[in-house]
C-alpha cells in the first residue's frame, strides 16, 4: 500500500532542503545571541548552496555548480566573517528582545508563512527544474525574513534578516530561472556585498551615536 501522491526522490530531497532553509529562518527568529544569528545565516547560506548543487546534479545544469561555489564563498564565508568582525568592534553580545515574545513571534510567522504558501500556490507557476513547493517555501522564507526585520529592534538582526531575505530570493530564482545567465547571478551576489558594506556603515554610525545596537532610542523624528 503506497501513500497518495508522493513526490519523486529528487523532488522530495529538493523540498526537504527548501524546508530546512525555512526552518533556519524560524530559528533566527528565536536566536537571542547576535553571533548565533550570524552563524545561523551562514548555515542557511550553506544550505541554499547545497540546493543549487543538488539542482545542478539532478537536472544537469553545470553552471549551477559555479553558482553554488561562489554563493558558498560569498554568503557562508565572507559575509558572516565581515559581520562578525563588525560585531567584535561593537562589543555587544545579546540582541534585545523583539516586540513580541518568541512563541508569539513564531506563531505570527507561521501565519505569514501560510499566507505566502497559499498565495504563491494559487499563482500556478510551474518550472521544469524544481517542484512548485520549493517556490512556495522560498516565498515563505522571504516573508518570515520580513517578520524578523520588523519584530527585532537591533541593527544586527535587521541586517541578518535582510541578508537572509536575499537567500529566499536566490531560492526563488533557482526555481523560476535556474538557467539564468551566471553573470546575472554573480551580479546579484556582489549586490549583496554592497548591502553588507552599507549595513556595516549603518551599524558603525548607529553604534557610534547611541552606544548600542538597539533601535529603540531612535525616536527623535516621532511626531
Amino acid at each position, binding site marked *: *500500500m503506497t501513500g497518495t501522491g508522493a*513526490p519523486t526522490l529528487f523532488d522530495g530531497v529538493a523540498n526537504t532542503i527548501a524546508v530546512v532553509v525555512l526552518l533556519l529562518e524560524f530559528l533566527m527568529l528565536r536566536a537571542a545571541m547576535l553571533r548565533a544569528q550570524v552563524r545561523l545565516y551562514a548555515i542557511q547560506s550553506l544550505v541554499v548552496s547545497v540546493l543549487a548543487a543538488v539542482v545542478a546534479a539532478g537536472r544537469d545544469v553545470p553552471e549551477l555548480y559555479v553558482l553554488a561555489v561562489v554563493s558558498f564563498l560569498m554568503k557562508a564565508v565572507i559575509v558572516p566573517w565581515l559581520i562578525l568582525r563588525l560585531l567584535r568592534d561593537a562589543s555587544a553580545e545579546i540582541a534585545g528582545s523583539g516586540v513580541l515574545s518568541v512563541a508569539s513571534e*513564531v506563531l505570527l510567522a507561521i501565519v505569514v508563512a501560510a499566507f505566502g504558501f497559499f498565495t504563491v500556490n494559487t499563482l500556478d507557476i510551474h518550472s521544469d527544474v524544481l517542484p512548485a513547493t520549493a517556490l512556495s517555501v522560498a516565498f515563505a522564507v522571504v516573508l518570515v525574513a520580513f517578520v524578523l526585520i520588523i519584530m527585532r529592534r537591533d541593527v544586527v538582526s535587521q541586517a541578518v534578516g535582510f541578508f537572509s531575505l536575499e537567500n529566499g530570493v536566490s531560492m526563488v530564482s533557482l526555481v523560476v530561472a535556474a538557467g539564468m545567465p551566471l553573470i546575472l547571478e554573480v551580479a546579484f551576489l556582489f549586490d549583496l556585498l554592497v548591502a553588507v558594506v552599507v549595513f556595516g556603515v549603518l551599524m558603525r554610525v548607529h553604534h557610534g551615536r547611541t552606544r548600542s545596537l538597539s533601535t529603540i532610542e531612535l525616536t527623535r523624528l516621532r511626531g
Partner: protein
Amino acid sequence: MTTLELTPPVIQATQVLTIAVGAPLITGVIARVEAMLQGRHGPRVLQPYSDLAKLFRKESLAPRGTGPFFLAAPFVAMACYLTVPLLIPVLTSYALPLGFMGDILGGGFVLALASFVVAVAAAETGDSYAQLGSSRAKTFGAITEPVVLLVVFTVAIVTATDLPYVLGATVRSSPDQIVRPAHLLASAALFMVILFETGRIPIETHTGTTELGMIEEARPFEHSGPYFAVLKWGSMAKQLILFTLLLNVFVAPWGMAATRDVGGVLLAVVLLLAKSCVLGGVIAVIDDSFAKLRLFKITEFVAAAFLLAILAIFTLYLGGG
C-alpha cells in the same frame, strides 16, 4: 521440516509482554548511557528491575483523607498503558486482530486517560508538590495536544487512514516516502512530543530532586510501596510505547515479523529492544548536551514542535509533501 507458528492472540499477548517486561530495561540503558556520558560508572542496566522488586516488597501508606480512587489509579493507568500495545505495530508488520480496535488517535486517548487518572490521584492527596506536578502536566499537555493532532492529520493525509500499520507499510514501500518533507517534519515533531511526554531534558530533569522544576516526576510523590512501583513501571511502559510508535511507525519500521513463526517474532522482540536502546542513547545525548528550559520557556519548545507539524501539513497541501 515445519516451523512452529504462533496464533495471532499469542503474538498479540507477546506484544504486551514485550512492552511490560522490556520497559525497565530501556530505562536502565538510558540511565547507564547518561551516567557514562557524564563520566560516572552508573547503575547496572538491570537496576530498574531491582528497584521495582524492592518497591513491591515495601509497605504502602496512603495520605489521610484519600479515597479508593487514589489506590486504584496506578492500576487503571497501568491497564491503559498495556492496552496501547494491542493497537500499534510492536512486533509484526501486518495488523493483528485487535489492531483495528483503535487508530493512532484512539491510542492517544487511552494514554491521555492514563495521564488524567494519575493527575486526579495526585490532586486528591492534598500534597502541594504532587498537585503542582499534575496541574503543570495538564497545562502543558493541553498545548502539546495540537501538535499530536497535526501529526495525526499528516499521517491521515499521507495514507488516507490513520492506522499506524498503514503508515509503517507506506514508509517501507519506497525511499520516496522517506525523504518527503511531510514525513520528516512529522517525525521530528513527534520526537519533540516524546521528549515532552517522557519528561526528558529540555522539559524536565529525569532524575533530579528539585521539586520546583518537576512536572511528570512530581505526580507520584504520595504513592508508596507497590502502588508507587506500578506507577513507575507504568511510566517506563509509556516511554517504551512512545519509542515503539516513533520507531515502528515513523522512523524505522523495519525488522518486524512478517510471518507468524516463532523465530521471526523472537527476532522482532530483540530488534525492537535494540532499536529502542539506540533511540534511548540519542535521548541520553540530548539529556547531557542541553540545559533544562525554564518553565515558561516550555511554550517555545512546544511552539517549535507545532511549527514542524504545521509545515508538514502545508507542504502536503501544496502537493510537494
